[in-house]
Each structure stands twice: as structure tokens, then as C-alpha cells.
């Protein structure tokens, strides 16, 4: 039997505001446990929330960038459940009037374009973190993450393959980074995805029973979780069983999922409007102001790079897919004006070195204008390409001004043809055997001369000039 897969995504994204959603505690990741806390985010008796306006601004930004309608009268609701990481025993979230609704993100998989609908985006507070201490056999609670603002981005069940899911997440991540609302560091949990997944035999119209996969925190893990769960559901059906509607936890190290709770045991969250916060009214002017403040989005950038600079689509896809690569591209381009050249450097040396040194794109150290300067130096023939690559490799990890570095280390090319000529002459004189071979018709030997000359010139000459002079001198003989 052949099966079709249908999936929907719930993505939780931590916003990169300086302070928490309802208090002025820092949102910084990695502080000593329970140091970024106050009576509000730990839900102490009598404390009250005050909404951080930046969160609303970021939510509107995200809504506009994902083609959503902004809900002009939006409210918070309480989601009630008991758990030690939730100190108030309710999460302030949005159920009835989420801030963004009915958007979409366009993706492309293997050349096929598709639009994924976004049902809604809502604002909410994050919970704390539980850490199990196996030595003491107890569970410790860290409330630092409590109250960090989150957006939950809920898609419609529009995905039919894992590739579509990954394409969507890649696109979503790049949008969120572009508009500056989140750093989307999956390893720190600032981007998390839950996948709703169901399968049905080809030909069956109605969707199969879905399960929800939680706790997935890398793109690779998501791909594996989807494949694992799809296969599990197919096996259940082929064995004559029925898929149960339930929430499952994906264990990526073991490559299997576990049932967490079934629909029968589903929690009743007893949602109701949060009485401690007043409704938010979003004016047209506010939406317009946010719209005008949005930077160029990946899609627009991609089109412009192709039209304006004539760059290949493949390269542009990779560069515009990351706001950090875009920063390098645009910074270097501004200095040197050579789009194709900058693009080649990024696709080549930058990505090679990033991969070899396991540096995340956001942690690349060198200043983009220094790459621009390097390209200018090549163009002006101050250095040759090989020297430039060596300089860049150092610059990648140390970030310095290449002009200064080249001067300090005396790496300028020898542009004096006379100097090159005298080296060529001495090399020819010292190698009569090779000259004889050349005369005998072996063109290969020319490479030997070039190598010898460059060695003597310490690599600082323009290879084309050296080539030309050698050819002239040999032909004179």
C-alpha cells in the first residue's frame, strides 16, 4: 500500500527582546540559575504582569513578514495547568484573539513552488527549565527562562514531505533573523518545532489520525523524527492497527518516539481571558510604521541580486538564506563594487573556512569591509590571488585591515617589470638543461620556469606578467 503524509507545524520562537514579556528581567541565555528573576516572572503572590511593548512590535513585524492580517483588537488568555516549571500554574498566552492570522510563506522544493498557509501567530511567555540531578535524585527548577517572550507560529496542515518542512523552517528562520526578532538558535532552544503528522493510504480522502511530535530541536532531528513517525504510523496501519491521537516525544539519540499522553488524557487548559492585562488596540498607523521599518526580506533580496548583479540563482539562494552572509555580501560590496567577485569569495573561501573551523555563520568574525578591501587590492594588483587567499585565511580568524597587514608583512606584488625581467634572466641562465628541453619542444617546461621565478619573487608577482616575460625571453633565445 502507498501512503500520503500530511503535516502541520507549531514553531515556538524566542524573541530577542532585552527584557522579558511582563517584567524588566534580562532575557539573556545562560545566567546562573535563578539570577534573572523577580516576583513577577516567578509568579509570587500579588505580583502583576506589565506587557513589554517591544513584544507586540516584534509580533506585528513577524506578522507582516509572513503575510498575516494583524488583529487590531488583541487580548491575552490564561492557559491553566500544573507543572513545576510554570510558577503561576498558568501560562499567559493567546487563544481567542491571536495577534496575527491568515498568513503564508512560499517555499520551493526540487523546483516546485508551494505556499504554506499560516493559521495564526500568538504571543506568550516561556516556562522555566527543569534539571534532573541524578546524584541527589531530585529535580531542580531554573526560572531564568520564565517569562522570556515567545511567538508561536502555527501553520495549516499543508506539508506533504519532510523536505517541505525543512524548506519552510529554513525560510521561516531566515525571515525571523532578517527582521531582527529572534536569533533562532535551535541549540539554545530559541527555535523549537512541534510536528503534527498523519498518514493515509493513497486514494483515501479524509486525513488519518494525527500524532504530535514534541521536543525536536534541530533541522536534522526534525527530518529524522518525521521519517520515524511516518514509518511507525504506516507500520501500525499495515499491521491492522489504528493510530491513536496522542502526543509523542522524539528521542533523537535513540531514533524512536514515546507516547506522552493520549487524547483521553489530554489536559483541559481551562482557558479564559487574562484579567490582569488590558486588551491591546493596534492602530493602522502602528502597522504602517512597522511595515515601513521592515528591512528588505529574503525573497525581495534574492530577486534584486539576480536582476541587479546577474548572480547565479544557486549562489543567491545560499547568500540570501542567511542574514549573516547577506551582511558580509553587502558590506564587502559597498567597499569594492564587485558583486560577482564578492559572491565567489563567499561561496568559496568564506563557506569553506566556516565549515573547516566549525564556525556558525553568525559567529564569523571578520568585518565585511575588510573582504571588500582585499578584493580591491587584488583588482589593483597590489597582491595576487594566491596571496589574497592566504591573507584571507588569517583575516577570517583574526579580523584585521588587509591593507595594513600586507604593508606590515611586505606582501605587495613586484610590479616592476625590470625586476621581474632580471629574475627571469637569472633563472634561464641557471637552468640550461631546461632551456634545452624547451627548445626541444616541451612546452611543459615553461611551468617549471614560472615556478622558479615565483619562488625567487616570493610569490609576490603577478603570474600573468611573469608568464609573459618568460615566454618573451625564451622565444628570444
Amino acid at each position, binding site marked *: 500500500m502507498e501512503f500520503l503524509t500530511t503535516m502541520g507545524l507549531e514553531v515556538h520562537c524566542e524573541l530577542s527582546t532585552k527584557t522579558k514579556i511582563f517584567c524588566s528581567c534580562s532575557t539573556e541565555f545562560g545566567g546562573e540559575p535563578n539570577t534573572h528573576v523577580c516576583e513577577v516572572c516567578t509568579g509570587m503572590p500579588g505580583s*502583576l504582569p506589565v506587557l513589554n511593548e517591544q513584544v507586540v512590535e516584534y509580533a506585528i513585524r513577524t506578522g507582516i513578514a509572513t503575510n498575516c492580517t494583524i488583529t487590531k483588537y488583541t487580548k491575552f488568555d490564561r492557559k491553566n495547568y500544573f507543572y513545576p516549571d510554570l510558577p503561576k*500554574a498558568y501560562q499567559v498566552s493567546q487563544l481567542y484573539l491571536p495577534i496575527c492570522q491568515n498568513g503564508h510563506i512560499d517555499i520551493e522544493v526540487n523546483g516546485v513552488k508551494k505556499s504554506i498557509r499560516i493559521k495564526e501567530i500568538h504571543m506568550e511567555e516561556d516556562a522555566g527549565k527543569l534539571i534532573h540531578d541524578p546524584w541527589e535524585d531530585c529535580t531542580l527548577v531554573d526560572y531564568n527562562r520564565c517569562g522570556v517572550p515567545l511567538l508561536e507560529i502555527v501553520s495549516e496542515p499543508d506539508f506533504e514531505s519532510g523536505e517541505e518542512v525543512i524548506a519552510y523552517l529554513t525560510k521561516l528562520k531566515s525571515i525571523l533573523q532578517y527582521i531582527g526578532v529572534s536569533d533562532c538558535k535551535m541549540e539554545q532552544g530559541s527555535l523549537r518545532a512541534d510536528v503534527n503528522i498523519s498518514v493515509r493510504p493513497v486514494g483515501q480522502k479524509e486525513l488519518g489520525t494525527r500524532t504530535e511530535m514534541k521536543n525536536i530541536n534541530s533541522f536534522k532531528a526534525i527530518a529524522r523524527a518525521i521519517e520515524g513517525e511516518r514509518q511507525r504510523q504506516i507500520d501500525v496501519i499495515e499491521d491492522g492497527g489504528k493510530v491513536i491521537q496522542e502526543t509523542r516525544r522524539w528521542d533523537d539519540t535513540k531514533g524512536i518516539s514515546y507516547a506522552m499522553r493520549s487524547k483521553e488524557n489530554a489536559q483541559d487548559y481551562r*482557558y*479564559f481571558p487574562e484579567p490582569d492585562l488590558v486588551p491591546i488596540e493596534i492602530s493602522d498607523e502602528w502597522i504602517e510604521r512597522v511595515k515601513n521599518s521592515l528591512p528588505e526580506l529574503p525573497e525581495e533580496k534574492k530577486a534584486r541580486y539576480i536582476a541587479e548583479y546577474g548572480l547565479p540563482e544557486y549562489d543567491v539562494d545560499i547568500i540570501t538564506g542567511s542574514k549573516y552572509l547577506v551582511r558580509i555580501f553587502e558590506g564587502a560590496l559597498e567597499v569594492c563594487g564587485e558583486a560577482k567577485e564578492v559572491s565567489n569569495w563567499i561561496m568559496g573561501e568564506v563557506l569553506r573556512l566556516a565549515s573547516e573551523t566549525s564556525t556558525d555563520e553568525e559567529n564569523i568574525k571578520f568585518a565585511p569591509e575588510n573582504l571588500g578591501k582585499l578584493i580591491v587590492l587584488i583588482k589593483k594588483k597590489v597582491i595576487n590571488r594566491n596571496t589574497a587567499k592566504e591573507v584571507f585565511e588569517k583575516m577570517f580568524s583574526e579580523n584585521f585591515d588587509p591593507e595594513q597587514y600586507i604593508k606590515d608583512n611586505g606582501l605587495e606584488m613586484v610590479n616592476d617589470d625590470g625586476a621581474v625581467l632580471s629574475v627571469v634572466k637569472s633563472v634561464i641562465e641557471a637552468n640550461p638543461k631546461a632551456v634545452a628541453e624547451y627548445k626541444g619542444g616541451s612546452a611543459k617546461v615553461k611551468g617549471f620556469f614560472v615556478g622558479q621565478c615565483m619562488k625567487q619573487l616570493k610569490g609576490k608577482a603577478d603570474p600573468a606578467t611573469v608568464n609573459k616575460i618568460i615566454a618573451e625571453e625564451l622565444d628570444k633565445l
Partner: protein
Amino acid sequence: MDLSKLTALEAGKLIKNKEISVAEITKAALDNIYKTDKNYKAFVTVCHDEALKQAEEVQKKIDDGTLTSPLAGVPMAVKDNMCTKGILTTASSKILTGFKPFYTATAVEKLEKAGGVLLGKLNMDEFAMGSTTETSYYGPTLNPWGENRVPGGSSGGSAVAVATEQAYYTLGSDTGGSIRQPCSFCGITGIKPTYGTVSRYGLLAYASSLDQIGPMGKNVEDVAEVLSVISGHDPKDSTSFNNESLKFNLENNVKGRKIGIPVEYFGKGLDADVKARVLDAAKKLESMGAVIEEFNMPELEYAIPTYYIIACAEASSNLSRYDGVKYGYCTPEFEDLTDLYCKSRSEGFGMEVKRRIMIGAFVLSSGYYDAYYKKALQVKAVIKNSFDRAFEKYDAILSPTAPTTALKMGENLSDPLKMYLGDIYTVSVNLAGLPSMVVPCGFDSNGLPVGLQLTGKAFSENTLMNIAYSYQQETDFHLKRPVLKKEMEA
């Protein structure tokens, strides 16, 4: 001179004129508490050392001229559901055993900034759920006006502390009548301000959309002064109105004031003595020049069920944080997390609180939300509209505060439905978010006080205070004091 007989403003004047020091009046107040409170149990905690230290600091600031409030140096006390930094805050519940907040409620902080000296924390119904102060984990508070009578609730301790002259004024909180009904039962003056007038920051929430802190005192002048100090916008409370603090201009003049009497409030279930005293008060106001008119407000019939649905729903969520993990009472033995929650909450909460949590969880549960909670919100809007219509015609609505005078201890505790019905005249005011004031208007045949309730439109506190002030200028009910049982000095 018996200092305890003074009003808050009289005491403040003596302090200002250096006729008495803050330390002297504070010591006298503390001594009085030790002599008096054994018999009335208004206090859960007496802040002896803190009060004396505070008295010294306040005195210094009065002396160097930085403190000029008419309340500077005047000893007071607050209901035990308001957070006080480093001082036990229990909401009269076992579940908050040992809880000392590291922050102070905005209203209390404002009083302290004005030079108020905190004598202690006052008893109440557990988490403000009740109207007799009998649901307190620390035992009931007693009404000084009669043998074995409840002081009303939930701010029973706040009312008795004033009625027994242990504190010059107090703060209470009012979710469905918890300031007004004890004022009525104890023969004192108090006001539930417009929702959003006084910050709720640091008030242990019962029902967030209805809770409001307000002052309780010996007369209108004192209450007005305290409210002017504690009111005003608080950036820490999103539901607090963006208003300046209230200012009052008290004048004995009700000429031409239009006062409405809702006929529905004088029907079945209202004690005859209470009815007579309240109507006497209406006549008195009429004789002073006010225009009294009867009118109909049939929507009030739905106020009690609406109130209990909304209040319990919010309470069930607000009280979920008390789980035995982070602070307060924790059960000594448990199997796992669920067991820890169940036992701590079962052992830590009293009957009435559990009943309201159950009601609240029920009305919010899926499948019932629309039938109960959503409907209640709709009725709430209807009730608010009917008040709005009434205030197109009237400056204030006059009514009884409660159907009876102070009940006997234990009378209502066994019959919650009867207790809920006692809130009939007060809860609609909270649903509509309106200001409402209570002043003494006489006594029943048992010598128990009766309170007159005056309700106004949002932010009409000044109008209400003026009517109440005028009434007190022409009557002496607010000057009557109960005969107290005091321990002789050792």
C-alpha cells in the same frame, strides 16, 4: 487623654503640632492592641519592633520637614492579603504559612511614604472568600457590638481594628462587598473605589477583575484622606487607570443631589430594622435638600450567580500557584509530584476556598465555558449598562449594604448558599467596577449597627464622599462606639 479615641486626622494634627511624638502614639497603640485584641482577634500579626522603628524614622522626617502629610505618624494596619516586605503575609490561609514577601504592595508603600506607621496585619476570611471572617485559618474575629457576633467579611479584621479603636484607619479589599459589609456590621465608614483607582500590585488576588483595595475608618474625612494617598496610577498594575491620585473637597451640601433608590433592593429577604434605618437615612438626606426617587433595576436579580461564576473562575486560576513547592505550606510526606500538589493543597486550603476553586474549575472546563463563564461575562455587561442608565438620572444610588445586621457566629458557615445571598446588595457594584461607600445609619433592636450604601458612577468618589460627609455632619451614628472588653494592665 485616651489617644485611641482620636480620629486619624486628629491624631495627625497632634503629631504635627508636636503635642505628641510618633513613638508615643505608636507605643500607646501597641499597648492598646495587647490589652484589647485578645477579645476580638483582629490582628494576625502585630509588627511591634517594625512599628517602633518606623515611628522613629517618620518622626525624623516630620522634624526635618520632609513629611507633611496629615497622616504622617498615624498608626494604621492593613488586611493580611497585602504584601509587606519581610513581614508575614498569610491571607489568613494555612497554605501561606511562613510566607514573607520581598516586596510591598503599592497601596501600603504609598501609605508608608506618607508616614503611616504599620501596626500589623489584619485577619480576614481565607483569601477574602467569605463574609464573616470565620473562614480564617487563624480563627474568627469578633464583632465588638454584640456577644458572639461576626464582624462581617472578608475584611473583618480591618473593620474590627477600627471599631475597637486599635488602629486609626485600615485598608481592606473588596471583591464582592468585603469592605462595605464589615463596615456596615461594625458601624464604621469605608469605600470601595472605582476599579483601577488603587493599584492592586501586591494584593494577593482573589478575583483580579473585581478586587479593589480601599480605606476603612472612623469618618468620611479620614477615609477621604487615606484614599487620596493610596489612589493614582501605578505602572506596575496594567489595570490601574492613568489618573492622578484623587483629591477631595468636602462640603456639607446635598442640595439638589439626585439620589435613586432601586425598588428591588427593598423587597423580600431584607431585615425590617435594616430597611427602616436605611429609609430613615434617605429621609434625612431628603430633609437636607437631596432629591430622592425610586426606580427599577430588574437586572440586579442576576448579580449573585454572575458574580460567583466570574469570581470563582478567576480564583481557581489565581490560587493555582499555591502548590507547596516554592513557599508556604508543604505536606511533609508525598509519593510523587501529583501527590505533593494534591496533599499540599488539600491540607493547606480551607473548605470555602476549596469550594470556590472547584466551582471555578468547573465553569471554565471545556464544554461548560460557554454556558457559564461566557454567559456570566455577558450578564456582567448587562448589569453595567443598567447602572450606566441609572447614572444618567442620579448622582448616587442609595441602598442597604447587607440584608441583615451582624449575624451570630456559625450561622452562615454551614450554609454557603445563604451566605452567598447575603452579598446581594454589594456584588453588582464590583461587576460594574463602580465606587461604593458605606456610612453608619443607625442600629437595629439588638443594638447592632446598620450601614447605608451609596454607589456612584465610575470616578465619582468625590460626589459620594460629599454626600456621606454631609450626612455625617447632620447625624452622630458614626460617633457611637461599642463598649469594649479590655484586659487590665499588668
